[in-house]
């Protein structure tokens, strides 16, 4: 059986080191020639004469995505401007000073009696800084440097940091999940009072779900945190999120895998979401993470943690044990069904040797009839197929319509009210543990960490609709 290709984006080996002396960072082609011709380099102070007049400033590295037709300089007022290579008649070097980026990194002030929190870094925008080479925000802050930027952390806990990897969250994969889960278990065994995981926000809910399954019965809080506005900007939510997360890890009584991110878009409080019920719901809003189909675990601000419910796993002081199970089958796919979908997509997955397929179906959990033969084929190839709903809210109900019953006969198993991404990672985890599809079914349908709930409270589905008088009245009366 052919293994599916591994995700090529996943960072598995160290990036090659940059040459020791790159004098023309990022410049290539005509721009590089031009710099060389006039004997100047990046960080040279220059006077550029061009057909558009004179420009004075310091040569900056060129972003990789930029063309090879311009030289970028920083002028005295701090602005950057680009000068076209073909307009340049002369460049004189008037000075040269290499810029050194220094981000204040301070040793964390340890204080007797404060809870001990471990911060595990994975990358993403909570840990980022600017990079000249790409002109972009890249994950590069070490967790230790974070303290230099957020000294309030010292009032909350004794913090130790460890950078596990530096990847954008979309590049998180099986290997990272396993490393992360093992690191968490190791820290629990060491006796930490809480764990914070710095994570990019895009797939934070995937990781939160994976960790909920891989690290069970944690005696301490495991809090995932990130930021929607990069930490290089004054309005960033990174610092406050980190403060909230550290607070939750250090002090909260909730010993679960949680996501801690902004409640409203205002700088008011964070929400602690159960790791299996949370989802990123807006591409850019600060308050993007929402608990789906239920209410969040708690609110957290600088002063206190206020639980919104009581049915959470309690912290177990003195206990250093958790249940670690890092099984993970990568040959599982998550398919978002759309009308007119051809069955060949399902066929292809079966042919490629995938062992599990999670479908995000329409409405109560449907796909079109033309897919039925492909589902039957999957069943015969002993591929585990689970149905979730793309409406996100609500349960799969495959007994309401005839079509649903047909699909169940073809081996499609309703995944209750598991979110599609949660069902996906759980199926990876379940298939990693066993080949026995009945056992897989038992694992899938037995709630481990709240991924399936027996009931949906009426306040679990609240999407306020703007424009309605009562909603507008509500909005005008509260900080958003």
């Amino acid at each position: 059986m052919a293994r599916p290709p591994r995700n090529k984006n996943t960072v598995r080996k160290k990036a090659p080191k940059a040459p020791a002396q790159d004098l023309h960072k990022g410049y290539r082609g005509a721009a590089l020639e031009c710099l060389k011709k006039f004997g100047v380099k990046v960080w040279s102070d220059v006077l550029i004469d061009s057909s558009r007049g004179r420009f004075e400033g310091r040569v900056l590295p060129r972003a990789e995505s930029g063309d090879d037709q311009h030289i970028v300089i920083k002028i005295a007022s701090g602005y950057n401007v680009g000068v076209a290579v073909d307009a340049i008649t002369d460049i004189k070097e008037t000075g040269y000073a290499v810029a050194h980026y220094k981000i204040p990194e301070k040793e964390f002030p340890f204080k007797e009696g404060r809870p001990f929190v471990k911060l595990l870094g994975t990358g993403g925008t909570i840990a980022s800084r600017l990079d000249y080479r790409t002109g972009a925000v890249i994950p590069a802050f070490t967790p230790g440097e974070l303290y230099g930027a957020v000294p309030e952390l010292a009032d909350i806990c004794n913090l130790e940091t460890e950078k596990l990897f530096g990847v954008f969250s979309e590049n998180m994969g099986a290997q990272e999940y396993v490393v992360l889960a093992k690191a968490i278990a190791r820290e629990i065994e060491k006796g930490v009072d809480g764990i914070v995981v710095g994570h990019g926000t895009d797939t934070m809910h995937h990781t939160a779900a994976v960790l909920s399954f891989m690290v069970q019965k944690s005696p301490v809080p495991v809090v995932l945190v990130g930021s929607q506005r990069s930490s290089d900007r004054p309005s960033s939510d990174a610092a406050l999120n980190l403060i909230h997360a550290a607070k939750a890890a250090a002090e909260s009584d909730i010993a679960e895998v949680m996501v801690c991110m902004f409640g409203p878009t205002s700088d008011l409080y964070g929400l602690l979401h159960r790791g299996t019920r949370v989802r990123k719901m807006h591409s850019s809003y600060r308050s993007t993470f929402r608990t789906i189909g239920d209410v969040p675990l708690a609110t957290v601000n600088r002063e206190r943690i206020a639980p919104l419910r009581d049915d959470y796993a309690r912290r177990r002081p003195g206990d250093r044990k958790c249940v670690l199970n890092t099984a993970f089958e990568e040959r599982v796919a998550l398919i978002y069904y759309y009308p007119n979908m051809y069955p060949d997509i399902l066929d292809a997955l079966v042919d490629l040797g995938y062992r599990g397929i999670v479908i995000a179906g329409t409405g109560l959990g449907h796909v079109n009839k033309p897919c039925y033969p492909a589902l039957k084929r999957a069943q015969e190839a002993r591929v585990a197929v689970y149905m979730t709903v793309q409406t996100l809210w609500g349960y799969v109900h495959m007994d309401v319509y005839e079509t649903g019953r047909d699909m169940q006969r073809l081996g499609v198993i309703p995944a209750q009210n598991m979110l599609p991404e949660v069902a996906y990672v759980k199926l990876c985890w379940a298939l990693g543990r066993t080949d026995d599809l009945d056992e897989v079914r038992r694992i899938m349908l037995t709630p481990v960490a709240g991924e399936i709930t027996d009931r949906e409270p009426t306040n679990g589905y609240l999407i306020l609709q703007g424009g309605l008088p009562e909603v507008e009245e509500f909005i005008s009366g509260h900080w958003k």
Partner: protein
Amino acid sequence: MPTITNVRPFGSLTDDDYRAMGFRGGLEIHQQLLTTSKLFCRCPAGIYSYDYDAEILRHMRPTLSEMGEYDGTALMEFKTRKNIIYRTKQETCCTYEMDDTPPFDMDEESIDIGLKIALLLNCNIVSEMHIIRKQYLDGSIPTGFQRTAIVGVEGYVPFRGRRIGIKQLAVEEDSCREVGDEGHYRIYLTDRLGMPLVETVTHPDMETPAEIAEVGQLLRRLTRSTGLVRTGIGAAREDVNVSVAGGTRAEIKGVPRLKAIPRLVHNEAMRQRALLDIHAELKRRGITESSFRAVVVDVSAAATGDRQNLPAAAAKEGGHAYAVALRGFRGILGARTQETKSFVDEISDRVRVVACLDRLPNVFDDETSSRQLGDETWRRLRRKLKARDRDVVVLVWGPAEDARLGADEIVLRAHEATIGVPSETRQALADGTTGFERILPGPDRMYPDTDRPPIKIPEERVAALASELPEPIWTREGRYREWGVPEDCVAPLAASRWAETFEKVVEEHGVEPKFAATTLTHKMKGWRRRGWAVDDLAPSDVERTFSLYGRGKISREALTAALEAYLSHGAPLRSILNDLTHRGKVTARLPEIAKKVERKIKVRRFPNGPAAMKRYAMGELMAELRGLVPGAELAEIVTEKFLPKAKER
């Protein structure tokens, strides 16, 4: 005690006095562009309203710039711990302005207008615009930075036979409108936020306060000459940079009117001079940056048991008070720094802004406000601080953290006096003085915007825009000189709103350039001085009046008289002009009027000779014919008709 400083009132210095003190001034002009949408999102521009649908609360944290340093302003703003409230209205604010959505494409129309203005100002146009984030931690922009991009650098405008350098011109987004700032809350409206502006920065090439206002006027007229910018209240806002020899560049923000500039700038120059004098005095006393000493003591009610003698705010539950002894500072706090201010105001300002202690007075001291507390209290405070005669004691009070921060600021500001003039942003106050706003930010607050790629400005685009430019003011000036316009009228006229009218009446109505020019500059200036609403004069009315003159229907005097009558009485200009032309046929009435005057002369004696008689005759005729017959013509009549008769006698 001899006075330490010498603050001279506005209006008492000559241009040479300013030059002698090494006065330099520059301008930063923010001009809104006339576009339909905002710069980085598609919200409408130019719709203002005070009501709102929702509020959002944010805080600002200082961040690292790409050079890896914290900016001074940034740290100060962070110290203030302000709660920033944004008021949003659905029609004028989307999730972009509130920093919940990344920016969209930069508005092309705005780029074109920016390029045009840069070309008008003779700037070197960049080949690639790089969007930069300029940090503002006062909360006036929710992102904490303004997106801004340079379109041109190193231009100039001709001014009085020399050049005023234009350092740079940027297209950028406007900030919020502040509607409240009290204690730890600052409130902003978001309707103006994100509207496109051009920011024009001049070199500090102005040598007197008056010149700054004049150049401001020139630049304003220039940008307006494109017809592509907004006008009206708040559409153009000036910041003024001021320094004197030995001083430091201070930036005066929020100058309401160009006319307010000279006094503000004078006061700021005087303040810098005063701070230099204070610095010299401290040096004379042996107090330097390193030998400076101050002591802070917690004198909260709880700590002293002296509840009744502390200010009410400090005595309140939870209120704290700190006393600061500034060693060797006696006499300094009362030293004049501006027309209505002394050094203690420098301290009080800092405490107000940084510690959010904005209920004034927020400090007492035993030099300038010792009567606010009993002698016994001061004695006790002095004992506590081990203050000697040469020391001065300052008291600050308020909520615990604010009071402590206030005490620190007192020490910091006093310490800065030993160094010289701090680099500050100062706010323009109504009485023409300035007050501390924040530490002047440096280039460290600039870093690239990573949300948008650079924008290429190809040669063709620049060439196309260059061909659409309005005529530059200096070209106009050259033409006026050729026309024989008196030199003192050339520059003011070319930059005035009457330039277009002037050219029309000369070219289309055949009016002599010299007459039209002097009327539209000197006369207008005189009328304005009399307090007449010259700005309300419609160019079309003025043109009509000149055209009547050009066609010989009214005399020069009549033209002047008509405009004066209009400005002084407010009667409709049209009816004044009708009146003048209707009485028309004046020449026909002349013999009759002359006879009348002749009769009057006959019954009078002129012991002082013919000249007196001439004056009398002219006066009488003018009274009858005021403005209807040119003066020269009347003089001729008088000389021919009456003088000979006088001689006869």
